């Protein structure tokens, strides 16, 4: 029983980690709290919905299509909202406010356009078979989710640490003015980071939509609190931190639901957030430069 719950926890934790990755990337590189991120999450899920339901694509095709679409949407919206602020060097709170307003407008617009009802992905996308390891049962869908998450995390880490592009991104993250002077096109890097970030959000949207079988315009908003907890516990801007914190949160949530009450999951997450803010606000892996006078 416990083992099964831990596995379930790891699974939802993996999706939380995936969701938080793009968000922490935006902050780490571009110093923006990009709340429209939640919308890209919903967008990815919706694109997958249309791709599988109306175009009859299989999940292996729908997933990258959804992720790429979310990435493109992200580039467009982010550049509309954030370019001006970035050029003026506006404080982080400005980007938070702008994206806060934008994301709610976007959710509401999507709700008007598509209706607020909960949709489901067409059945049979993944054969309902499952593997059994002793007392633990993992469905193919769950394996897919874990696999895709692990794959994307590895690709992201490889990109950031082993490629020239990753070095350019990290240069922009650390000293945007210096990076610009060295010939790095910061505008293009920003667009690329938006694309990656949006793509990760979109992929997370598809996977979570698959896991919980519920897709509706505001689903990104429901995830945001978890995203915040993961990002702060893991350390704002830290990729490995987001992964570890995501997994931990997933496990904690499942255990809370199992042993206390499922209605209090959010409260427990928030409590963790507050405790971390009181004790170690830079998170597990963040630098201690977060504290000020």
């Amino acid at each position, binding site marked *: 029983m416990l083992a099964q719950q831990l596995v379930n926890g790891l699974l939802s934790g993996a999706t939380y980690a995936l969701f938080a990755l793009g968000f922490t990337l935006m902050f780490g590189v571009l110093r923006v709290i990009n709340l429209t991120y939640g919308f890209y999450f919903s967008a990815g899920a919706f694109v997958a919905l249309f791709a599988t339901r109306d175009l009859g694509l299989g999940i292996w095709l729908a997933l990258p299509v959804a992720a790429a679409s979310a990435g493109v949407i992200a580039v467009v919206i982010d550049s509309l909202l954030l370019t001006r602020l970035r050029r003026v060097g506006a*404080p982080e709170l400005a980007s938070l406010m702008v994206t806060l307003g934008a994301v*709610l*407008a976007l*959710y509401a617009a999507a*709700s*008007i356009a598509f209706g607020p009802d909960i949709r489901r992905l067409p059945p049979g996308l993944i054969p309902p078979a499952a593997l059994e390891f002793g007392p633990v049962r993992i469905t193919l869908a769950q394996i897919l989710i874990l696999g895709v998450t692990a794959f994307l995390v590895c690709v992201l880490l490889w990109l950031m640490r082993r490629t020239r592009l990753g070095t350019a991104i990290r240069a922009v993250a650390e000293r945007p003015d210096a990076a610009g002077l060295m010939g790095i096109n910061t505008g293009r890097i920003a667009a690329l980071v938006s694309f990656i970030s949006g793509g990760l959000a979109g992929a997370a949207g598809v996977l979570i939509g698959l896991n919980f079988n519920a897709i509706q315009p505001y689903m990104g908003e429901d995830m945001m609190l978890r995203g915040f907890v993961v990002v702060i516990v893991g350390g704002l801007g830290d990729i490995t931190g987001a992964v570890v914190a995501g997994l931990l949160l997933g496990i904690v949530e499942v255990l809370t639901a199992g042993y206390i009450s499922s*209605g209090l999951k959010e*409260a427990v997450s928030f409590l963790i957030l507050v405790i971390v803010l009181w004790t170690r606000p830079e998170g597990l892996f963040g630098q201690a430069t977060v504290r000020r006078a």
Partner: protein
Amino acid sequence: MGDWFQPGWLDDFLFTYQNLVYSLGINGLLALSMYVVLAVGQLSIGQAAFMGLGAYSGALMSVQLHWPFWLVLPASCIAPVAFALAIGLPTIRLSGVYLAIATIGLGEVLRAIYLNADSLLGIDLFGGPMGLSGIPERAGVGTIYGTLAVAIAVLWLVGRSRIGRAMEAMREDEMAAQVMGVRLRRYKMGALLASAVLAGLAGSLGAHESAFIGPGEYGFQPAVTILSYALLGGIGTPLGPVLGAWVLTLLPEALRGIADARMVINGVIIVLVVLFLPQGILPMRLRRSAAPK
């Protein structure tokens, strides 16, 4: 209706436009609660959460404890202030982003608690999804607008004093304000507590005029709406946000019934104001001491 401030002609007017008149007063208070936080350069999206705490605690004091209203109203501020301390104290010393994030989560978490607390603890206090009804209608136009007028007067006077100067200095340039002796943490915490008090009062007044409150009224979307009041009106004077609140409260009369459209408008307003009109529609400033001729 038990409030001796209302003459006869006002009664007739109220009968027709009752809810609107009440909303204008209460939203004005909420806009002021947002104003004090923005006035020190911070961003807190917790006003709706504090409002909910004021509403629920005030309602419970009236319904369960049968306290008189003159006691209930100030006592409704205790819960919001307590939560403001719990979130504010650890985050005040950090970058403003942390306070913003923590307050975003608060509203949703409290909503989950209002919804589930009864079933979890086996009590019958919060009323679950149906909320609380039968709250005695103790708050009339006089009390609401009286509170609003006092709040505006106090904030106006404070704004024109050395405290207001310190706040504006902090808002413009924290480092310069610091070396001039402005104790940043004290002012930030003070503003947050003031905003909790104002929002708590608004919540309690609202509960005692509508006789019914539900858990869904104090979440993320109302919080962002309150932000749009303050941004639209501009934070140069306390009147700005109140005016912004009135414009945005009256506006939906034309768009009756389409809650989502209202959110789109609020969101777009926030985006436009932050990007293009940082002063809001009322670019007035509190003129402080005039230079001697």
